[in-house]
């Protein structure tokens, strides 16, 4: 059996996704039996030219982690799409924009002004900023990738075949991917396009905390304000915001096991387009607001006002692919 030619390409990443793969430990030998790596900058020395030298479609499995932040991220995504038969979006950043896409918020101050001028340690009297192209006296040019306006998910720029969410994807999910690859290599069959390699239900089903039929809560607490958390009871009635009701299962409920509210790195459940809205509406219905007519804007506003940081709370990992970020971005364009 020929090995699957595999390329791992990096966008705007923290490399935690690479560490997650290395955390497979002994299982990495199984990966090595199955895959021949042709590109993986974090672990191997192949250069971009090595990837470009391959025929289109010659790579069997292309894995992309990180968000699309720069023109280079975009270019690499396009190269990967061309070279690979199958493209997998790996990790929350590639799936939904992830934490880096929090910088898509409509800020009144430019990101460059802050990081290259205004931070207190800065010593930049000339106001130098990184430039895409600088011409040297010799006539040569040095280039830097362009910062795109927003950070986005992989499927905002190329067609994606499979999704592995999580920040980073947890080892059991990566083991599932290995099983998929094994089956592919043995039988040539793959799951239906668009499959999310994770759980199907909500995190609540996986979490195992006891959840009353009708949850009610009076106020939300910060993690440092809570003294004793009942480890068997759902966090929400105990005053801790938990994204469980809107979040896809599959992580093993890592955060709620530690008495910490989920922030949704697995992304929304099947068919949900906007993770944050789904969660806000779940909370609203828990609040016993009359939802028969659907949620009015005022009602939504009310909920949001109770939480001083709705974006960081409900869109921690999915802002880049949310409806609300599209609204923000349209507004800015106008």
């Amino acid at each position, binding site marked *: 059996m020929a090995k699957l030619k595999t390329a791992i390409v990096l966008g705007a*990443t*923290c*490399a935690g996704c690479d560490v997650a793969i290395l955390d497979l430990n002994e299982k990495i030998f199984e990966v090595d039996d199955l895959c021949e790596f042709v590109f993986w900058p974090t672990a191997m020395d192949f250069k971009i030219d090595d990837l470009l030298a391959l025929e289109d479609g010659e790579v069997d499995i292309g894995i992309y982690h990180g968000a699309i932040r720069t023109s280079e991220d975009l270019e690499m995504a396009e190269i990967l799409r061309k070279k690979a038969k199958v493209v997998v979006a790996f990790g929350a950043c590639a799936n939904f924009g992830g934490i880096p896409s929090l910088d898509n918020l409509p800020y009144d101050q430019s990101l460059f002004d802050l990081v290259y001028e205004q*931070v207190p*340690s800065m010593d930049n009297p000339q106001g130098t900023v990184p430039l895409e192209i600088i011409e040297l006296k010799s006539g040569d040019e040095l280039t830097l990738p362009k910062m795109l306006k927003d950070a986005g998910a992989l499927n905002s720029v190329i067609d994606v075949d499979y999704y592995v969410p999580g920040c980073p994807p947890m080892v059991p999910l990566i083991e599932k991917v290995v099983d998929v690859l094994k089956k592919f290599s043995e039988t040539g069959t793959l799951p239906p396009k668009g499959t999310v390699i994770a759980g199907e239900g909500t995190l609540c089903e996986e979490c195992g905390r006891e959840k009353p039929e009708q949850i009610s809560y009076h106020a939300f607490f910060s*993690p*440092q304000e809570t003294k004793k958390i009942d480890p068997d009871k759902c966090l929400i009635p105990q005053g801790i915001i938990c994204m469980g009701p809107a979040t896809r299962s599959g992580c093993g409920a890592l955060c709620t096991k*530690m008495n910490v509210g989920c922030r949704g790195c697995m992304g929304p459940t099947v068919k949900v387009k906007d993770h944050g809205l789904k969660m806000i509406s779940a909370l609203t219905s828990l609040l016993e607001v009359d939802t028969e007519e659907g949620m009015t804007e005022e009602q939504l506003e009310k909920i949001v006002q109770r939480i*001083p940081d709705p974006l960081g709370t409900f869109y921690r990992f999915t802002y880049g692919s949310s409806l609300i970020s599209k609204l923000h971005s349209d507004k800015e364009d106008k």
Partner: protein
Amino acid sequence: MPKIYEVEPVTRLEGHGGLILKVSDDGKKVLDAQFNVTTTRFFEKFVEGRFMEHVPRITPRICGICPIPHHIAPTKAVEDAWNVKIPPAAFKVRELLLQAKQYSSHLLHFYALAAPDFIYGPFADPAKRNVVSILKDLPAEGKMALEMMEYGQALCAAIGGKSVHPIVSIPGGLKNPFSEEHRDFFLKDWERQVEYTKKTVEIALKVVTDYWDVVANVGVVPTWYLGVAKEDGTHDIHDGMLSICNPEGKIKRYKPQKYLEVIGEHVTSHNYGTHTFIKEVGYPEGVYQTGPLGMINVAERMNTPLADAALKEMRDKIGTNPIHNVFAFHWARIIETVAAIENIGNLLKDPDIVSTDIKTMDVEPIAGRGVGMVEAPRGTLIYDLTSDEKGICRKANLLVATNHNLGGIDKLVTHVAKQIIEQDALKSIKLPDPWVK
């Protein structure tokens, strides 16, 4: 016309970088060499508006290889801003978490990122020159390396909740205690890990001996150094003083809150990463290096016996203090690995480590500014966070390992390029036969 060579991407490092080398038209003179960070993610901006206590849950995504220091440093900054004192047991569990990460990250760096060069030789086929090949060609060492990294990562997960991107640290202490079962589990395997670490030291010493010509002669570039150490000079990754060492070895120590007196940030137009420098000498004279070699150069001693003996051996063998040999970075990393496993043992044996008194309730958001500093495996992290009275983060300034090291890397790369191209150093340098051909 000068020629420009570009290497893209620079591999076996986490993050994005490109290397640019400018050489004179006759190909004989190196005009300049730069290491450029080709992306950035604006963390300083988007932690604004977040709850202060959630900053430690966001910033670990700056680096997936060392997320734990990026979890603890901002927690300390919040506590500094809000005047919070944490229980002693919480301090110890955080230290255990940091040491566990130090252990797994240094080993990952040594075995997975660096070892391919000396095991296969720097000129081997790229298809061969990587960690997977090592695991197959040297199964005994490979298995040992995997078991060591797994120990560190599993300990990180047991304390932090996840092995990558922890969630346990909050202002006032920790969300969850470290359980007795976990303590017993990791204590049971600890002695074997010490044996493994000793074997790793042997491997590292063999590399140093084999490559002595390279260690002693390539990339010996005096710079400043920056790291963390206790006031008396003892190595400390968790709660020390910001320490700098000039190229002649004169050391000064400052409270982390004074970092703006010590460090400035410089921007160049070819780089998304900013270059930090020592303010008292300015840029570029004041570029410095941080990480294991910086830590060793600003320390008088290690805080554990085996590591301290290893440090003395290194200083004796190289013969200078500070040590300017860039290839001694690996050696320094191994000394810190020894310190990590010894500290892990001491902490696991401390009865406080399973204490449930790990969280103070005396935590009230107030308007204020705080600085938190810890040492990450690749360099010092400084978090400067400003809170409003509701506990929302209003301003942030983060200095991380990449900023610190950029100036030093440029200086080093230029130096090494000159050695290789102008002095044809590779010809006269003795390289050993690769371990595996």
